[in-house]
Structures are given as C-alpha cells and as structure tokens.
C-alpha cells in the first residue's frame, strides 16, 4: 500500500474537521476491511494523503435499548450485533443480516457504519489500477459504465443510472425493512435520514467529511414479524446475489402493513411496493404469498445477463414470508 499519514480522532466533530481541512484528500477508516482493499488496489481517483481513524471516537460502539427500539453506534462490530441479546430478541432480521456477512474474521473487525458506507463491489470498479491501468467509470469521474455492455451478471436490475452496481451491504436491507434511520454529522451539524436514502446510483449520499454516527431502530409495531434472507453461491464469504428483508404487521389475521426491501438488485435497498400493496388487507398464507411474491420487481429492466435475479428475488420473498407465517 502506498504511504499515507494516519490520525486518531477522539470525537466525531474532530473527525469532520480533520477531513474538511484535508480538502478531499483524506479517508475515514473504521474496521478497514473495505477501505484497505480499495487503497491496495489504488481505485480512488485521488489517493488519500491522510487516513483518519474513527475507531478511537468514544461512545459509538454500543447497543442501547430505547423505548422498545435501539440506538446502535456506528462503531459496533458486526460480530457483536449477531450475538447481542437485545438485537437477537427485538431485531432478529438485523442479527441474521449481520451474521450473514463475509466471515467470522471480517465480522470481528467490520463495523456497522462501515458496512453501510462500504464502496461498491462492481468488478469493473474494483479492477486493480496496477494491472494494466485504471478502469475508469462514472464513479471514478469519467468513462462509461462497463457493466452495460460487459459482464453484468451481478449488477442491478432496477434503478441504475450511469452506474449499475448494486448495494453490497446486507445490514442495509434488514435495517430498511425495520424502518431504521441513520444519524450523520458534518460541517453543517447533524442530520438524520432513512437508511434507504443513504444510497444513490453513484454511491452513498454522505457529503464530504460527514461521519455516520448512529443507527436508530424504532420500536417495531405490535403484532409484527420480521426476517432477512440472502441468496449466495457459497455460504460464507459471498456477497448477496439477492437478499430480502421483510417486516409484516398483522391485525386480526390480516396484513395491515408490509415492508419488503430487496438487496443485490438496485443501488440501494429496493422497496417493492408491488408486493407490499398486494399483501395489504389479506391474510398472510400460502396463497397470498405465492401471488404476492410473483409481483416482485415487475418494473425491473434487467441488463443482458442478470434477469435471473428477478426469479431468485421472487423465490426468496416467498421462502421468507412462508417462514414468517410459522
């Protein structure tokens, strides 16, 4: 890895200040499991002069129960979330999504904030700079999206624009289904936004120097059930080809609210209102599930090699909802 200087910061506002002073020539590091790969392959249009370590910020590593919901610090490790009794009891979808990430070794280092903010895994974007030169693309500031005419089997089937890479984060999908918001601090103070709004086709929507500090999950509605399911080729290590996070609330035997988010198919968690609308006011049973799941991704515009993701999404939704009826 090429040389960079390194700074530990003690507070989030120090981190923001330090990044702004560097005028775009710095990166934040949390667990480093994503960032170090990016720096080793020299993918960024400008290599950082300074890496700012945010792991030294106090008080962002905890899970705190709050009125039936929870506030999770951005520095909480994925390995802690998969084992946390509060998370397992109240937000099993999040626990399952955290446990499904990568490998035990990565989950020991990877943070929730880093998992949400990680860069795309598009294999064109990730092509190492030192192997025959940089593969430029819209995310790197110039050139076309190579996935459009190239091998796009793992790319988005809906919502791509200029860049067709899907959101790689598993926890984002579960958190979106749970209605979670993220809190962000930047030069203009704090703001908070729904998890799904953290994503755009060109990457996450954090502005320069902003740090994601906390994730807030609201208390879940009475009578709701939730889950997360992920399709991969290998069980460990692999990113989701497709994943689904769902929360279904039922009143007197009928669905009053459904939140269905699909991962691996769009630049962010894709909310499938077609499925949600069909389920509303119906009992959640094999019949409604079979019909609802076929309504998933009806608006998709797959690329040349990835229409198969639509079938997988429909099967995953059906499997997950069936499990939630048990």
């Amino acid at each position, binding site marked *: *890895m*090429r*040389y*960079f*200087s*390194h700074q530990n910061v003690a507070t989030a506002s120090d981190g923001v200040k330090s990044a702004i002073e560097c005028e775009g020539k710095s990166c934040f*590091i949390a*667990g*480093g*499991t994503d960032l*170090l*790969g990016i*720096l*080793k*392959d020299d993918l960024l249009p400008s290599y950082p002069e300074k*890496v700012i*370590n945010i*792991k030294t910020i106090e008080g962002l590593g905890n899970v705190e129960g709050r009125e039936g919901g929870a506030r999770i610090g951005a520095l909480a490790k994925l*390995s802690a979330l998969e084992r946390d009794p509060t998370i397992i009891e109240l937000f099993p979808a999040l626990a399952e999504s955290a446990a499904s990430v*990568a*490998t*035990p*070794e*990565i989950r*020991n*280092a990877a943070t929730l904030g880093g998992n949400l903010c990680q860069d795309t895994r598009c294999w064109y974007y990730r092509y190492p700079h030192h192997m025959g030169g940089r593969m430029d693309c819209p995310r790197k500031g110039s050139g076309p999206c190579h996935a459009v005419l190239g091998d796009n089997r793992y790319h988005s089937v809906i919502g791509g624009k200029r860049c067709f890479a899907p959101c790689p984060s598993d926890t984002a999908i579960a958190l979106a289904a749970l209605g979670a918001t993220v809190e962000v601090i930047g030069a203009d103070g704090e703001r908070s936004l729904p998890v799904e709004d953290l994503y755009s086709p060109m990457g996450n929507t954090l502005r320069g120097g902003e740090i994601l500090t906390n994730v807030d999950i609201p208390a879940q509605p009475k009578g709701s059930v939730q889950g997360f399911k992920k399709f991969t080729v290998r*069980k*460990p*290590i692999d990113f989701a080809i497709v994943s689904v996070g769902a929360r279904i609330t039922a009143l007197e035997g009928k669905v009053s609210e459904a939140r269905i988010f699909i991962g691996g198919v769009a630049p962010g968690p894709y909310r499938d209102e077609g499925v949600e609308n069909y389920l509303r006011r119906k009992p959640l049973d094999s019949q409604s599930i079979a019909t609802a799941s076929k309504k998933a991704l009806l608006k998709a515009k797959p690329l040349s090699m990835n229409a198969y993701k639509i079938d997988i999404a429909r099967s995953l939704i059906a499997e997950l909802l069936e499990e939630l009826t048990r």
Partner: protein
Amino acid sequence: MSSKPTKWVSLTINGDNREFAIGGRAGELPPSETLADTLRERLGLTGTKVGCDRGSCCSCTVLINGAPSLSCMTLTVECDGASVITIEGLPDPLTGALDPLQQAFIDHTAYQCGFCTPGMIMAAKALLTANPSPAESEIKSALGGHYCRCISHYHVIDAVADAAGRKS
C-alpha cells in the same frame, strides 16, 4: 512524506513486547503498513501467510486480543497496546512442544501444501478456547472463510474435532 518525529506504537507479539516508531523515514514503520507485512517482512515471522491480501482467504489469520483477525486488513499503527499471537506463538516456549492442535493437524495430515494451515490453526485455536467441545457445524462456521486450494477441509474438521477431544 511525513518528516515529523515520532509517534510510537507498542504491542506484544507472541508475548514479546515490540515498539515501533511510526513515520515515513528510514527505519520507521509507515502508517500504511499492514500487520501481515510487519510480521513477515519486519520481524521475519513468516509463519503467517498472505494469500489474497484483500480479506478474502483468511490465510493471514492471527489472534489479536484473542479474536481471530485478518492481519492483511489490519494496520499495525492501529494495534497499539494489542496482544498478537501468530502460529510461531503456539508451541510451548520452554519445551518447544507443539500445541495439541498443531499435533492433531500433523496426525490427520490436515494439509497438503500447507499454505492455508497457519490461518486455519489460529482460527481453530480461538474456537477451542471459546468453545472446548464444538459441534461439527460450529467448526465449519468458525473456519468457513478459510480457503484451501488443496481441499484439506475434510481433514481439518477431523483434526480440530480430535484436538478438542484430546484436550478434554
């Protein structure tokens, strides 16, 4: 390149205290150096193997404060105060006797080329410390990220289960 003196980090590696001056000058440890490079290139502890150098194969696994961790995805500068154990730290320092896990790997020939073996053993060590009699499914999930090009996985599972039995 930074010329300011000097920040120090100190960590213990296999029980020995090590201190490094951090910086960009000759003899200093660059902040961009990974723990894998420090172990192998700076300290000659070449038992830790670097396969992918990208977090995807687990061959570089060492124990950092007891947790199996990827040394290729860890900056040494961020290990201040940490205790690191590598494969060289497993045998008894006085007698040189191998750890029961190492012996079990030998007895089961749980390797072919041996490149993935140190990482496998370190992750298995952490597993057995936390869970002295793991079920096969637990062994598989603890070692699920460890890539073996020679398909030693089946023998590895036997070796770890055997080592667990020998201990109890």
